[in-house]
């Protein structure tokens, strides 16, 4: 295992050395003409209009969270769908379907809860 890691270690150390080298070089060799214009933040060439730390309406957060939740849960359907044929061939389609049924019904309860509690309303 140690022998296998030698090339990997070489690459990593080379990468670190190169990165540091260029940072130091550009720091040492580069011209330094500081001006007020240079220290302003760059936003596609347009002067920055206000602070970036503005307030968001908290509802955005909730909607994003719920989207993430249900979207991610839906992703679990794909591997199940791929494996489902194997279950059918093994004569265990009912089991696989039941498992997914349980999963989805838990999801539905969560969805109903969110809906009933007003999590989907904007105001």
């Amino acid at each position, binding site marked *: *295992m140690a022998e296998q890691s030698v090339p990997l270690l070489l690459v990593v150390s080379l990468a670190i050395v190169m990165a540091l080298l260029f940072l130091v070089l550009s720091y040492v060799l580069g011209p330094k003409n500081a001006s007020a214009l240079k220290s302003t933040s760059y936003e596609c060439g347009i002067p920055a209009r206000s602070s970036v730390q503005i307030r968001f309406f908290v509802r955005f957060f909730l909607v994003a969270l719920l989207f993430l939740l249900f979207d991610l849960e839906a992703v679990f359907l794909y591997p199940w769908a791929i494996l489902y044929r194997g279950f059918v061939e093994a*004569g*265990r389609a*009912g*089991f696989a379907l039941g498992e997914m049924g349980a999963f989805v019904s*838990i999801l539905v*309860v969560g969805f*109903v*809860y969110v809906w*009933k*509690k007003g999590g989907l309303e904007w105001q």
Partner: protein
Amino acid sequence: MTNVAGMDLATQLSALLPYLVLAAGGLLVMLVDAFVKSLRKEHLSMLSLLVLLGVAVANFTGSMSLSDRTLLGGMVVNDQYSWFFNMLFVAVALLTVTFASGLYDRDGHYRAEFYPLVLFATLGMMLLVAATDLMTLFLALETMSLSVYVLVAGNRGSLRSSEAGFKYLIMGAFASAFLLMGMALLYGETGGTSYAMIGDTIAGMNSASLLLKLATGLILIGFGFKIAMVPFHMWTPDVYEGAPCYVTGFMATGVKAAAVAALLRFAWLTLPVLADVWFPVLMVLAVVTMTYGNLVALSQNSIKRMLAYSSIAHAGYLLMGVLAYLQTGRDIGVATRAEEVGVAAGGAVLFYLVGYALMNLGAFGIVTYLSKDRKHEADTIDGYAGLAQKRPVAAASLAVFLFSLAGIPPTVGFVGKFYIFDAVVKADLLPLAIWGVVNSLLSVYYYLRVIMTMYMKPAEDDSYSGGSWETVFAAGVLALMVLMLGVMPGTLSQLARNTFKFMAY
């Protein structure tokens, strides 16, 4: 028609009944909360209590008729070990719900989401102990942790509570990352996630490989966070103080017991590696953990913070028991009587966890009882002045719990510590046992300070006065149990030893 691991689905499901009842019950409470608007919120707590009682009955009737069973293709196991802890967790959850409802009553404002969260956290704890696959272990840990993160932040409007929740979430995510990395390495080294496969691979090895050492170390760190082991304890005081007091009690007893129980099963699984590599490290950490917890607790003025540091110190005592067990895989002299020492050590840890749950939950129950509402908790120790005259039952119960935490006979805390030190001595670790006794002596000071305040100082106008009867009733029953188990520990101790014996040997 469906055959999973040689057992038909119906049998498996009936063996899983406690978990199913709890999961369905949690969902039911959620739905009732969302739909039945006319229902008074008090009924949610009744419903939760009913669900928990149902789980207790299902656990009691189900597991007694079943022997050790690996279920769902090796994902969970239904053995006496999981049965034992299921009972403990259900009891802890029952008491937590009772305490919380009393405070909500006084507050006049129910937090309905508390109930399903407690139920789901309990489900996570139960599965954490029953897990025999790294996947289940992680899922259970997250089910428990995620619910508890929200519970900690349950005092909406209180900055401290939000801060505590946030802190716990960040630190918990950190701990999960360590745990996951360890699991990934363990999988890489053994080629499987099931305990059976990991155990076989480790047994077939002559000496532990570097990856295996690293993997077990990372997993130990993950557990270390959950049981508040130094140096992974940083979150404990702030979180325990910020969380609502009934949630703190739930965390200090339930979450800690679940993590220690899972750690013990993991220690059994990877005994050769842990004993070989991590024993010295764990020994140093155990010593530092109890010493640090006790020393810092000396100067606390908030009772929740004091109990938080005491909880760190108790993590140290529990680790001593785990160390005594690990010694059976390390020391050649001890290995000749491995089963005797191992059963003594494991049984002591199990007994201590039950005793600790009783006394600590009771102490937090009294804190909850004395709190005026959720915003004004009975936190500063000065406020306990003169409690003995004002609320004799509450003061006496709290005194019993604190005596027990300090390890003074005739309480369960004394017997628990005795078993642990006894196991440690049996494992030829005498210096460790002596250090444990010194620490217990040290801890007497800060526990007695509260008792002194309650009994020796006159009541003041702003002293705490108390609340609903069911809380103090439950706490009183707990105090009686603490005393009873201190006098007659035999049955429980025997059960704990047998439980560990069936799991490990």
